[in-house]
């Protein structure tokens, strides 16, 4: 035995380890970056966001680099942003939710129809919309966790069911902004705007809506919950390795159901914000929210394989899309260029994710 250990000592003194050492030192710088990104995956989207704002600012000058234009981007991404926060939770558990947009729209329709068709107090209608979203989310979660059906299939089906129910129930009738304003202004609450630094006529300056504030708050609260509470750690654990999580005492089933329920609840809030944003209750809006939210999540660096990613990433992801859309619009480019660049960003983001994954392998 002792003879063997002597042999190891001898091997260490041979010249070979020195070459290995220099080799690993060269790899070390890259590995260092890889490790940094592994620990804090929101760094890349934040970097892309800052660079794109600077680039468009240089290209377009004050037209883009004004408080008005920059806060306009926030207003334009608020709905996608809120839905992306919900989508992030699901994707962290290695799931996917295709029904997010449909839940948001039907929740908004319920808020509107309960007020205008049944004459219920608007507070009750809003609560009913929020409860409805949570319920649909719970059903998704139950089918996935208890019935062991794949998330993609469950939410694909739920998307169709909720969307069809939305059109049947609403008869595709729009509730006009003017009626809402007169009879149920609470529905438009999240659309309330306030200005900072506007001129005497109330124009220009930074314009915020309560919906934008709501989006930022949702991200802040989720960020705290995911990093500081047991439930938050369980979400990551379930996404990383459900068997291991189960063995270490996490109630995987309950965690997954609660994640989809919270997702449904947040989508219903997005539906409420949608009324504020477009003024009216329109059953045809939000059709692309599922794809747009997944895009924001992926660009935001959350791994589709679950268990890894920072909740702030999708906020940056949504903002990157918003910056590209408005920036290219102001630069006079064809709208298709936006989609082309977003497509490239998605593939780039997933490629980077695969590379980062190797650090843990």
């Amino acid at each position, binding site marked *: 035995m002792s003879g063997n250990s002597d042999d190891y000592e001898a091997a260490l003194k041979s010249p070979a380890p020195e070459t290995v050492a220099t080799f690993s030192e060269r790899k070390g710088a890259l590995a260092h970056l890889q490790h940094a990104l592994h620990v804090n995956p929101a760094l890349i989207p934040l970097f892309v966001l800052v660079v794109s704002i600077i680039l468009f600012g240089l290209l377009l000058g004050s037209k883009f680099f004004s408080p008005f234009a920059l806060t306009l981007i926030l207003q334009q991404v608020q709905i996608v942003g809120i839905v992306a926060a919900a989508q992030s939770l699901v994707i962290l558990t290695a799931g996917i939710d295709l029904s997010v947009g449909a839940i948001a729209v039907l929740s908004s329709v319920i808020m509107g129809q309960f007020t205008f068709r049944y004459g219920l107090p608007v507070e009750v209608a809003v609560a009913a919309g929020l409860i409805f979203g949570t319920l649909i989310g719970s059903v998704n979660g139950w089918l996935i966790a208890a019935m062991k059906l794949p998330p993609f299939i469950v939410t694909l089906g739920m998307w169709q069911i909720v969307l069809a129910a939305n059109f049947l129930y609403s008869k595709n*009738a729009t509730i006009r902004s003017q009626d809402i304003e007169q009879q149920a202004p609470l529905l438009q609450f999240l659309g309330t705007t306030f200005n900072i630094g506007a001129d005497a006529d109330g124009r220009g300056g930074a314009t915020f809506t309560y919906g934008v504030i709501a989006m930022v708050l949702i991200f802040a609260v989720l960020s705290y919950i995911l990093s500081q509470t047991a439930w938050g750690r369980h979400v990551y654990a379930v996404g990383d390795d459900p068997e291991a999580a189960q063995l270490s005492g996490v109630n995987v089933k309950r965690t997954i159901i609660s994640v989809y329920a919270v997702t449904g609840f947040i989508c219903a809030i997005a539906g409420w914000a949608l009324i504020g944003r477009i003024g009216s209750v329109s059953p045809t809006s939000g059709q692309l929210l599922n794809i747009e939210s997944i895009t924001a999540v992926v660009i935001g660096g959350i791994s589709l394989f679950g268990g890894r990613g920072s909740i702030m990433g999708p906020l940056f992801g949504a903002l990157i899309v918003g910056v590209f859309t408005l920036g290219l619009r102001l630069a006079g480019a064809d709208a298709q260029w936006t989609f082309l660049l977003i497509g490239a960003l998605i593939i780039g983001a997933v490629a980077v994710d695969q590379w980062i994954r190797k650090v843990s392998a």
Partner: protein
Amino acid sequence: MKKLLIGTALAAITTAGSAMADGHAISACLITKTDTNPFFVKMREGAEAAAAEAGITLRSYAGQVDGDHETQVAAIETCILDGASGILLTASDTSSIVGAVTQAREAGLLVIALDTPLNPIDAADATFATDNFLAGELIGQWAAATLGDGAASARIAMLDLAVSQPTVGVLRDQGFLQGFGIDLADPNVNGDEDDARIVGNDVTAGNEEGGRKAMENLLAVDPSVNVVYTINEPAAAGAYEALKSIGRENDVLIVSVDGGCPGVQNIADGVIGATAQQYPLQMAALGIQAIAAFAVDGTLPENTEGKDFFDTGVALVTDQPVDGVESISVEEGMALCWG
């Protein structure tokens, strides 16, 4: 002309009735882009009423969403198998559907394009539609007349339908510019005009969400916009919200096309200045009558004089009429509105 057609149709209905008694029931198909849009809902109501009156069996099909081409092709194939006498079709994809339409016509069916002309327009036996160029022209003339001398220095935002520039979007957009007195360059293309009064074009997908975003984008390009053309009334409502959020809703003129009930109500409320109203119920009813006539003795519907389609009419609705542009009041518009 219209009366003449209805007359023929009525004559046909009586004959059709007796044919039914002989056990040769006539059936017709209605294929719409979706069955949720109030415009198509109204269209189906019109077709059902006319079919019941004529004793025709009507089968309705619709795509799941606007742009659902495959479902429409399958519906045409079903109608051919079913032995229908004719098809009323609002195509989602106006060129790709031509193959299936040709197949139906070769099988002896009468195919009438409703609302949306096929590409080419003569791929269908007939087209019953709104004159969308005229609809645009009416609101363009109204906007120019309302601004008066201000028209020379107007700042115009163009809120169109989609990047792919579907025919209906191009006709309304170009009609508006023609009515306003702006050189069109190529009348088949949106956004190629070089008149300095145009701030820019953006797309809305024809809904509130898109309308708001497009308006915000164009306001970011130039905040002094004071005339807004919109493809339809939901887009107009969205544009209004964007203007309201920066406190400019009262000094901007919004014009639109469609004549849906919420849109007409928005004129009364001062959201939209004027809209050009179209008549889906009429389109479908006339279409069914034409199929009835064709089933009896092979009569083919004729086009409106000077046009390559049958014009089902359009009227300007506004509560601020101007000299030289014929219009109807909001009350009259409400009586005729759909959805």
